[in-house]
């Protein structure tokens, strides 16, 4: 594989990420990992939904959740998913600058989302809804916090790859790494779709 690591031609089928065997392995391996992550989040969702009414006299979801804030966070994360896919388009056309631009936007949107989430958590703690206050609190922070941790990891990961891409350009070695990080970012968005539906909206429905 090393023989053609540094070639700079667009791949025949338009997919640089699976142009080498290493790339094929990485992309498949990452999809398998996402399958495992699905089960992981399902267990957290199950736990939350089973325990969400156990507030022990503390504030309920209906009382706490602010739909405007959640809608804003959702819009930000959805948009970042789009910018991430645009970055992958640029990558497969070997447009380094365009790709870096869209990746940068993705990271910034991710940061924005994270700031909103931290603000939200601080607000909840002031309302008396903490990790230790009740089973509802524990399971809420475990689920949403795990998602937040994934977002944080994604931001660090994509930033790292931007640095590497700036140094090395778009190669058959970089492409699968970038593609896989984009898959990860979309997956985070998929999980969020269920969080806003089954945590926030369901909390409001009661």
């Amino acid at each position, binding site marked *: 594989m090393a023989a053609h690591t540094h070639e700079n031609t667009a791949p025949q089928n338009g997919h640089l990420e699976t142009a080498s065997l290493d790339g094929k392995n990485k992309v498949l391996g990452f*999809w398998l990992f996402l399958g495992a992550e699905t089960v992981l989040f399902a267990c957290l969702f199950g736990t939350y*939904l089973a325990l969400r009414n156990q507030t022990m006299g503390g504030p309920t979801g209906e009382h706490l959740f602010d*739909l405007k804030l959640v809608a804003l966070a959702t819009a930000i994360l959805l948009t970042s998913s789009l910018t991430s896919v645009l970055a992958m*388009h640029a990558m497969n056309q070997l447009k380094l600058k365009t790709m870096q631009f869209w990746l940068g936007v993705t990271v910034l949107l991710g940061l924005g989302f994270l700031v909103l989430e931290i603000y939200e958590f601080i607000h909840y703690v002031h309302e008396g809804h903490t990790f230790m206050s009740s089973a509802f609190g524990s399971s809420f922070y475990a689920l949403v916090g795990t998602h937040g941790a994934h977002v944080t990891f994604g931001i660090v990961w994509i930033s790292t790859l931007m640095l590497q891409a700036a140094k090395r350009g778009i190669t058959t070695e970089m492409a699968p790494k970038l593609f896989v990080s984009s898959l990860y970012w979309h997956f985070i968005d998929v999980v969020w779709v269920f969080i*806003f539906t089954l945590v926030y*909206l369901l909390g409001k429905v009661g």
Partner: protein
Amino acid sequence: MAGHNQQSTTNQPASRKPEGVMKHLISFAIMIVLTALAFYLVATDVVPEGWVLPLIIIFAAIQVFLQLFTFMHLDQKGSGYYTLFIMAGILIAVVSAVGIILM
């Protein structure tokens, strides 16, 4: 591994048409609409209360499939294994989550 060195030497012009950007924009638009609709249903009383939950779950499911098949490229050729394993994961995930919630 070794048989691999022969291929991928064909030169392709770097200026290829941006295929699929439109597709992604459309699916993004649908996602935004579905999300807005879900929030709208919950914030107002336009549908009976019992209908809200099933509806927003259906909206979420549609969004997930859009993400998987357009943004994450499962609609492309050679994605059979990816689809197989992610679907197996989703099946086991749903069974487990429903089990924990109901029992």
